[in-house]
């Protein structure tokens, strides 16, 4: 089972991401966080293999800033920056801790992206 952590402060979108992963029984949502600070805390105990990370979060820390710190805790996790900020695409290319970039309006591609990062056949 591939464990997933969702870091998203919009509860409707958090539920949407959960629902998307519930469509593939090989994934299990093991952690939910509304802030990067909380995500850093629970990453130690949930050891997610996939992290869906929003950029603008409830706390002071942004998704891009949190990504390298999450990678230190769970080095093998695939991090997907899932954001409404299209302009972050170029910034993400300079941040090696982020494995994939996806706009929130492209959520239909999320499951396929997570499957690829987890090495699972579609």
């Amino acid at each position: 089972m591939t464990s997933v952590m969702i870091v998203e402060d919009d509860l409707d979108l958090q539920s949407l991401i959960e629902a998307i992963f519930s469509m593939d029984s090989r994934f299990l949502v093991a952690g939910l966080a509304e802030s990067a600070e909380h995500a850093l805390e629970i990453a130690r105990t949930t050891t997610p293999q996939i992290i869906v990370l929003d950029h603008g979060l409830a706390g002071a820390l942004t998704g891009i800033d949190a990504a390298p710190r999450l990678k230190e805790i769970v080095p093998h996790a695939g991090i997907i920056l899932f954001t409404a900020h299209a302009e972050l695409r170029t910034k993400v290319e300079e941040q090696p801790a982020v494995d994939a970039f996806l706009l929130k309006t492209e959520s239909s591609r999320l499951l396929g992206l997570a499957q690829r990062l987890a090495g699972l056949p579609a």
Partner: protein
Amino acid sequence: MTDAETLRQDADAAEKADYATAVINILEDLAVERIKVDKANIDLRTVNEAMRSFIAIAAHDLRSPLASMVGYSSLLTENWTTLSEEKRLKFVTTIDRQSQKLAKLVDDLLTLSSIDGGVLNAQPEQIGVTQAISHCLAASGRDMTTVSVSCSPDLVVRVDPLHLGRIIDNYVQNAFKYGEPPVRIEAAQLGSMVEIQVIDHGPGVPPEFESQLFGKFARADVPSARDQKGTGLGLSIVRGLAEANGGQARHRANVPQGSCFAVTLPTGGGPQR
């Protein structure tokens, strides 16, 4: 040198002096104009920057509810037969909630655009302030016991009724979102104007943020604001609506704790609605 030559020389010198003075005047005028153009360029750059920032924030805020709607509708379309009735209902309810949020945001942006463009059309009528407050609280669905109202029943304003409702509703919503109960609405005559105040007992507005309070996308970086979802357009709209109706919106601290948001509006005479 003859007298005639001396006279001609003097005339030439005077003409040259006049010419030099004229050139200096033109140069001085040009320098003044140059300063004006430089200032206009700086102002344009500032406006351009503000517009760019406005569009970036608006685009982001529009995209968030849209993302939910697109995501849930895709899930429904692709998995309709495998989803339980309960989940389908939950997803459709979310789409409905987010579409209402999107509609409100678009409405706010269009209102702001009308205000900024100076084309907001106010249709003033005589309105009883007590009735306007009661109507607004009833429409909000809020528990009436959580708000106390102090207003003389004969107070009348001459404003656009929709604008007045929106101003009061915005202030009351903010009082509950960012402030703390008890929330009090007070209205009183102030010369030719009526002042309506919405007072809460929350943490108040940080002094460093006060000057931006009625600006577009204004959201203070304090816990009470961080925990709330909002576009930061509400107070900017309130100010625009107040001014379009010949009034003013302002904030002052509520002593010892909380905020007092006030709007002054022209008093009305004659028959009221």
